[in-house]
């Protein structure tokens, strides 16, 4: 495996840009990767990975800046960072809070990197034994998990997932080369269906633009924002007694990352509530205790390595950011899945090393120049969005080297994502359905054709039974969770 200075520079660029996207509320790590994907056309896979993983780590970490300084999570995954980070900043401990957050992020990131390194190869070894039946069931399971964990209505989550599958089926079916669901007018443009990259850019960048435009592109209010100069200095002793907290939170983050389609905000919320229930001083949570801050920040960076585990072993993205990363692998003609590591050992090592370097760079770029980094939250998004659009156009147009329809489909998916938000249909299941829909169909048809067109195919293999058990488990959990939520709702109404 070669290693050059270019790699470090790319990772540093990625981390720096990622921090900006993470810190400006309304812009996310997912968006950063979607917007920067076209840049990777120009590079080989290794260089591209340094940039993308840098963006990922930087994007997730940058969120803590806005969360602590202006009480708005810069990315959804730093939601719970606001609970204790902002009160600390109000007390004049902004620098301490930021540094605790940065160190927690580093530890969470390194923990999840270890999990990625250890868990992916054995998981891939199991997955190699999968036939069409298991692969189909696995995708079905991924979709039920997303639905089970999507807050709000489970039915809506499943609906969104299948809608994504449905839209991914538009175009030509490769078995009998016949088109379906394509309007006559677009039979040339839609022969291969909607392209992934314009869809991603649309859902994550254009949708956000519409939402921000609707609320007037207002800058986050800085009036109540806290200064970075501190009354109480940071010291590594702040972590004393928090060792278990860090490991537990990072593990929760990693686990939430591994489960397909579960976002960073869920990881942050779960780690925070667990830290609270295990704490000796749960009453301090929400008033500015480092414990809560540590839980939230180590869990959301735990996500980074975790989300890559199912992507690289099963070909199923762990969250929407890694879903975007599938786009990068596709651009370079690489198939993610069980054979990925054995066929591309170099790329696998590159991913591990790039993630390690990105985490270290994130720490160096945030911890030491903190005073300047804190100013990032003041960058007005009304100036960033037009430039983002510029990059989006380049990316969408370059998807198939110059098809204008791809730019329009970016706008279509942008509008779709905007409408989804209005009718409270979750985007993550839709996206996963859209990405995996083609595979779902291929495996389903392969399994059927291999078993004389009989649906019994899906119940014949023991490995398949295990996945059926997982499917039933997640649907059962979803129903239980839904009932509990409804009970709590009606109890709340009576109060």
């Amino acid at each position, binding site marked *: 495996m070669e290693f050059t200075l270019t790699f470090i520079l790319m990772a540093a660029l990625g981390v720096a840009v990622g921090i900006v996207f993470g810190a400006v509320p309304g812009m996310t790590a997912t968006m950063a990767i979607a917007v920067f994907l*076209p*840049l990777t*056309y*120009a590079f080989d896979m290794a260089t591209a990975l340094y940039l993308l993983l840098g963006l990922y780590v930087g994007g997730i970490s940058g969120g803590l800046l806005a969360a602590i300084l202006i009480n708005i999570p810069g990315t959804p995954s730093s939601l719970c960072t606001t609970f204790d980070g902002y009160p600390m900043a109000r007390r004049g401990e902004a620098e301490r809070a930021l540094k605790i957050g940065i160190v927690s992020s580093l530890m969470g990131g390194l923990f999840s990197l270890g999990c990625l390194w250890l868990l992916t190869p054995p998981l891939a070894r199991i997955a190699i034994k999968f036939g069409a039946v298991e692969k189909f069931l696995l995708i079905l399971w991924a979709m039920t998990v997303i639905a089970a964990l999507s807050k709000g*209505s489970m*039915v*809506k989550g*499943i*609906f969104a997932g*299948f*809608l994504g*599958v*449905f839209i991914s*089926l538009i175009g*030509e*079916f490769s*078995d*009998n080369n*016949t*088109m*379906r*669901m394509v309007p006559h007018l677009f039979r040339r443009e839609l022969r291969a269906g909607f392209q992934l990259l314009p869809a991603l850019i649309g859902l994550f960048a*254009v949708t956000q*633009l*519409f939402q921000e*435009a*609707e*609320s*007037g*592109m207002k800058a986050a209010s800085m009036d109540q924002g806290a200064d970075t100069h501190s009354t109480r200095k940071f010291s590594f002793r702040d972590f004393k007694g928090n060792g278990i907290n860090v490991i537990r939170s990072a593990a929760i983050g990693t686990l939430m990352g591994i489960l397909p389609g579960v976002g960073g905000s869920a990881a942050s919320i779960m780690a925070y509530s667990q830290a609270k229930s295990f704490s000796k001083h749960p009453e301090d949570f929400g008033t500015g205790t480092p414990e809560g801050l540590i839980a939230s920040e180590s869990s959301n960076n735990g996500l980074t390595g975790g989300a890559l585990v199912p992507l690289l072993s099963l070909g199923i993205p762990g969250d929407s950011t890694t879903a975007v990363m599938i786009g990068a692998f596709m651009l370079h003609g690489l198939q993610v899945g069980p054979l990925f590591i054995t066929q591309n050992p170099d790329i696998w090592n590159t991913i591990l090393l790039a993630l390690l370097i990105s985490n270290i760079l994130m720490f160096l770029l945030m911890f030491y120049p903190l005073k300047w980094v804190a100013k990032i939250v003041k960058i007005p998004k*009304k*100036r960033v*969005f*037009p*430039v983002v*659009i*510029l*990059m989006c*156009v*380049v990316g969408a*147009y*370059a998807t198939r*080297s*110059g098809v*204008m329809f791809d*730019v*329009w489909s970016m*706008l279509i998916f942008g509008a779709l994502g905007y409408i989804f938000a*209005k009718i409270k249909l979750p985007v993550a299941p839709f996206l996963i359905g859209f990405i995996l829909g083609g595979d*779902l*169909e291929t495996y*389903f*048809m392969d399994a*059927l054709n291999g078993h*004389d*067109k*009989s*649906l*019994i195919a899906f119940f014949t293999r023991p490995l398949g039974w295990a996945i059926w058990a997982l499917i039933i488990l997640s649907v059962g959990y979803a129903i239980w969770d839904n009932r509990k939520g409804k009970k709590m709702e009606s109890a709340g109404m009576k109060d």
Partner: protein
Amino acid sequence: MKDLFKLNYKYSDSHLVVPRIIGGILILLAVLLVIERAKRCKKEGKPFFDLKGYRFFEKNYSKLKFWGSLAILAAYFALLEVIHFLPASLIFIFLLNVLYDDSINLAALFGKAEGPVIRWKPLLTSAMITVVFSVGVWYLFGTVFNITLP
């Protein structure tokens, strides 16, 4: 028994098998969603269709910025291949910047409000950002990286 689970389709129709199944599932789920909503509405005593109380956009949403963004994006994309990437970007990225930074006061322009029509400082910033990034992206991607631009 075995025939019960058998799907009958011809090879020439195999492209419709999965879309039909997924379509069926979607209809089923949609019905479930309607029932779920009907139940909730009945419980809370709300009408099923509440057109009067329904608001698609948020209260006091920025009409100009929202519809302006949509119009500018549509016009930008429509003209991309006609006048090519750099000129189109220079025009429309500038317009987007102006739309968001309020440097042109439309109310004052039409005599509906007091104050200056144009605020020059943000307008200059808009122009600078537009030129730097449009030319920068065009040069970097189009020339250095050799990526196809409109």
